[in-house]
């Protein structure tokens, strides 16, 4: 074999204490450790969510059980769904495997923005912790993971505020991670690897990241609007003032249907990798698979209404979305067919990853077909909100994509740990999951057709076959629990014992298999040939006799560890806690403004935490900005002419455009149907015009400052940033004045237009603060002498973000002040 692999790392470091390990993970910039953190937390969440599911099934095993009753059941149900979706299925594939293997498969040393990556993973972990703090603050959310309006703002509900805040923080981490992946793919591939020669898993992560960036705004908009109604009484949905509850469901499903594909695409990438390696064949239809991925991204954005056929939308809408629902099945079917095509005629190695793959193909096919059946409108009317739906989405997620999460773990475990998982326990794990899943969910399909609605915590005896089918389903859940226990044992054993895995235990042909198992911190102690004839370079190089060029590991520089991204994320946990359970003042929409001393103790504590978190946040953020990424000057390579910060920000901005787009679309709808009419006294256009002038000027100023930095005129550059900051501050002063005036003039709880104005223009004001902070960072870097010809700090990203805020303002002037 001409392809030489890196020598196995034989140095065994002395066992470190637990605190040392935790500290390492808090400060790390290593994409592999961050990926492991995502995988570990996701598996933990899978365990918690799984135990909750067992509790639900035990309650439903027989009629009139009293294990989980009333709101307790609803809290467990909501917790199960939210944890499985937001903390297991989405993160483990996209961010767990994505972080670990995307740079390895691209043949690079890290993602584009390693420190942002650390921030994102901790934000993800803290959002999970934040939801759990609901336990001693009234209870977990019990509104269902869909938190439909107006149930979510009902006074009897618990934990909704914290759920909303946690979703927004989780979403922020998710968007930063997605933007980071997209920037990595565009900017940092191994020299010679074109987009069309990337491994299919990288394509799947790319497609998922784009989908996440485009669609997540729907969930953010839904949770933000719900949160603002709870805290301030600002509502876009309240029917009492002309709002539309259905608008909420539109916002929500605009994300939550594409989310289904966020939970699918990374796993299809894993499936393709496993199929190709285990069948010893190239992928059948690599290009077709990429087109299918991108086709799914496009069409999945156009199907969300099929979740709400029963609300009685105009027939034209229903038809259009029914067609799109059927069409999205085509690229998905193509993927399945191509997986079979890849396996066909191959010399298949039947190991555990292959079993999970084949299990997935079988299960997902059936789940997919029941999904297509739901696209048929008349049939959908019959089974909407019944157990048929429950069975369907578990069919595609639990024993569809989660099977591939397991497949991915079994496939890449040797690479991640240097050890193999037990094949024997793996077989037990697989078959217990396979049998358990069908036994749990096949009866639920039938229950749905027999008319059992979902989200019932109990049911009476005497309905035809309900008792028997529910009992069988619960038995299935217990088998799944047994499978879960086998899984834990297998993973635990798989972390002990000697490291026996070679670099390439399965004989794969993508670049991650040239790294040692587990890979060293720098990933590769070699450089790759510059020619990539196909997406399987190791095969091609072996044929053509090209070899890897060894590199001295000592010459490799990695970003230095820093605690400040972690601290910044921690401050957001505190801020989120304060925003969930306290507020800046003792204000409630029902009771109005009261003295702070009248509030409850937990509210007071949360408010104090909120105030304390703000200086903590700024301190950590500025310390982060003031710490250089690399300890020594290094030369940066990127494939485009844009630096990584700019590239990451450019991708992130898609999500900001989406957020404003969703909210503004909602407002325009309410305005067009005549529900949101501006009151007689509305903010004056002249002040807005003045503010427009200020903001447009500031955009030119920061552009000039950037040019000055480019040309080495540092004094002018610093002055430009300062002027931009001052202009931003002046803008904020005018806007606060205008808000106070408008808020005193009329009651925002009674006027829909005013509520929309405060939500959307207020959100823009928040973006001015974020953008201003963004500009303050390079200003601080410049003042502390960290900017020079080679170091741009975060200048380009901050400037780009400021231009975005400016452009959004022009749109806001048009639709709120001029219209």
């Amino acid at each position, binding site marked *: 074999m001409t392809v030489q692999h890196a020598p196995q790392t034989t140095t065994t470091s002395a066992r470190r204490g637990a605190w040392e390990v935790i500290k390492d993970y808090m400060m790390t910039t290593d994409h592999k450790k961050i990926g492991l953190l995502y995988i570990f937390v996701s598996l933990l969440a899978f365990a918690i969510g799984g135990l909750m599911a067992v509790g639900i099934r035990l309650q439903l095993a027989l009629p009139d059980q009293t294990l989980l009753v009333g709101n307790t059941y609803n809290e467990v149900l909501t917790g199960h769904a939210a944890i499985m979706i937001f903390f297991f299925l989405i993160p483990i594939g996209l961010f767990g495997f994505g972080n670990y293997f995307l740079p390895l498969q691209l043949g690079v040393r890290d993602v584009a923005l390693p420190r942002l990556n650390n921030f994102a993973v901790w934000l993800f972990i803290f959002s999970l912790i934040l939801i759990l703090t609901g336990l001693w603050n009234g209870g977990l959310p019990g509104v269902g993971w869909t938190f439909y309006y*107006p149930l979510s703002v009902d006074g*009897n509900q618990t934990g909704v505020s914290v759920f909303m805040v946690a979703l927004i923080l989780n979403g922020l981490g998710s968007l930063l991670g997605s933007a980071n992946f997209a920037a990595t793919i565009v900017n940092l591939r191994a020299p010679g690897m074109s987009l069309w020669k990337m491994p299919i898993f990288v394509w799947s992560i790319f497609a998922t990241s784009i989908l996440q960036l485009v669609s997540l705004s729907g969930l953010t908009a839904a949770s933000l609007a719900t949160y603002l109604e709870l805290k301030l009484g600002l509502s876009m949905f309240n029917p009492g003032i002309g709002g*539309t509850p259905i608008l909420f469901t539109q916002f929500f499903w605009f994300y939550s249907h594409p989310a289904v594909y966020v939970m699918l695409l990374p796993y299809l990438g894993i499936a393709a990798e496993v199929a190709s390696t285990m069948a010893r064949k190239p992928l059948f239809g690599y290009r077709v698979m990429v087109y299918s991925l991108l086709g799914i991204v496009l069409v999945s954005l156009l199907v969300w209404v099929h979740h709400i056929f029963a*609300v009685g939308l105009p027939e034209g809408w229903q038809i259009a979305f029914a067609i799109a629902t059927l069409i999205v099945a085509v690229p998905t079917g193509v993927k399945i067919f191509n997986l079979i095509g890849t396996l066909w005629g191959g010399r298949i190695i039947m190991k555990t990853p292959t079993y999970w793959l084949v299990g997935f193909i079988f299960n997902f096919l059936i789940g997919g077909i029941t999904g297509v059946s739901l696209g048929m409108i*008349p049939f959908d009317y019959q089974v909407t*909100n019944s157990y048929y739906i429950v069975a369907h989405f578990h069919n595609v997620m639990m024993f569809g994509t989660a099977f591939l999460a397991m497949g991915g773990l079994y496939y890449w475990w040797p690479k991640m740990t240097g050890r193999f998982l037990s094949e024997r326990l793996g077989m037990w794990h697989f078959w217990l999951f396979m049998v358990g899943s069908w036994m749990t969910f096949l009866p639920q399909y039938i229950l749905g057709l027999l*008319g059992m*609605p979902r989200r019932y915590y109990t049911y009476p005896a005497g309905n035809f076959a309900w008792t028997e089918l529910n009992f069988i389903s619960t038995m299935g859940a217990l088998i799944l629990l047994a499978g879960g226990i086998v899984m834990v044992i297998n993973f635990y054993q798989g972390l002990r014992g000697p490291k026996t895995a070679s670099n390439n235990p399965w004989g794969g042909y993508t670049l991650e298999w040239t790294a040692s198992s587990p890979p060293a911190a720098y990933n590769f102690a070699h450089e790759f040939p510059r020619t990539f004839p196909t997406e399987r370079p190791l095969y091609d190089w072996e044929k053509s006799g090209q070899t890897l060029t060894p590199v001295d590991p000592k010459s490799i520089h990695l970003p230095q560890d820093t605690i400040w991204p972690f601290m910044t994320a921690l401050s957001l946990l505190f801020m989120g806690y304060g925003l969930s359970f306290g507020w800046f003042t003792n204000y409630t929409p029902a009771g109005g403004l009261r003295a702070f001393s009248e509030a409850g103790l937990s509210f007071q504590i949360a408010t104090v935490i909120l105030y304390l978190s703000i200086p903590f946040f700024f301190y950590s953020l500025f310390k982060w900005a003031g710490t250089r990424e690399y300890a020594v000057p290094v030369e940066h390579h990127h494939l485009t002419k844009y630096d990584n910060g700019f590239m990451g920000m450019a991708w992130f901005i898609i999500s900001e455009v989406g957020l404003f787009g969703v909210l503004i679309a909602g407002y325009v709808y309410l305005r067009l149907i005549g529900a949101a009419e501006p009151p007689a006294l509305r903010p004056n256009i002249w002040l807005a015009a003045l503010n427009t002038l200020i903001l447009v000027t500031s955009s030119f100023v920061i552009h000039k400052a950037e040019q000055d930095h480019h040309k080495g005129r540092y004094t002018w550059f610093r002055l430009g940033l300062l002027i931009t900051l001052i202009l931003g501050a002046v803008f904020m002063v005018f806007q606060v004045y205008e808000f106070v005036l408008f808020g005193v003039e009329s009651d925002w709880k009674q006027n829909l237009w005013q509520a929309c104005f405060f939500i959307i223009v207020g959100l823009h004001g928040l973006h001015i603060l974020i953008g201003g902070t963004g500009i303050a960072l390079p200003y601080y870097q410049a003042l502390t002498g960290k900017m020079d010809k080679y170091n741009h700090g975060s200048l380009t990203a901050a400037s780009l973000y400021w231009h975005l805020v400016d452009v959004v303002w022009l749109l806001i002037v048009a639709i709120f002040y001029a219209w």
Partner: protein
Amino acid sequence: MAPRPSAPAPRLEHHSLERYEAIWFGIATLMAVLLFVAAIASFISGTYTAIEGTGGGHHITGVESGRLDPRNLAATPFAEPGLRENPDGTLEAFVVARAFAFQPATLRVPAGRPVTIHLTSADVMHGYQVTGTNINATAIPGQVTSFTTTFRRPGTLSLVCNEYCGTGHHNMVNTIVVEAPGTQNQTE
């Protein structure tokens, strides 16, 4: 057992695979296009199925373009939920969903005559599912959901809420009694 004479396995050459791939891509594209055209053709020709009626053309006091003020149901016919017969002989039923029951608790309708059901919610979103049929509408606060249907066979149907609405959700079950023609007057 004699070994089966093995024919030389066809070799999967690179370009034969490429040709298969191209063919498959063509088939997949064709499928997407055909599905699209067939769906459009079905909708244009009117051979699709759908719930008939969009409010039956009835005007409801206090309701404008399907919207009403949920805080003031008293100004609308929803103040007195139930079935009523219009002077022109058409039947209209007003149903209010609220946590955790439907009003009227028992809706009596005659078999074989079209009934227009108007549905709204007084608090949160509810479902209106009639078991054994594909009637499944969402009751939305501030909006009226209307549809016309004909119950053909006499009998008792269960009416369940299927949109999660709070702790009493599973108890939100009422009935629709479909009465044989002629018996209606005695029960009213």
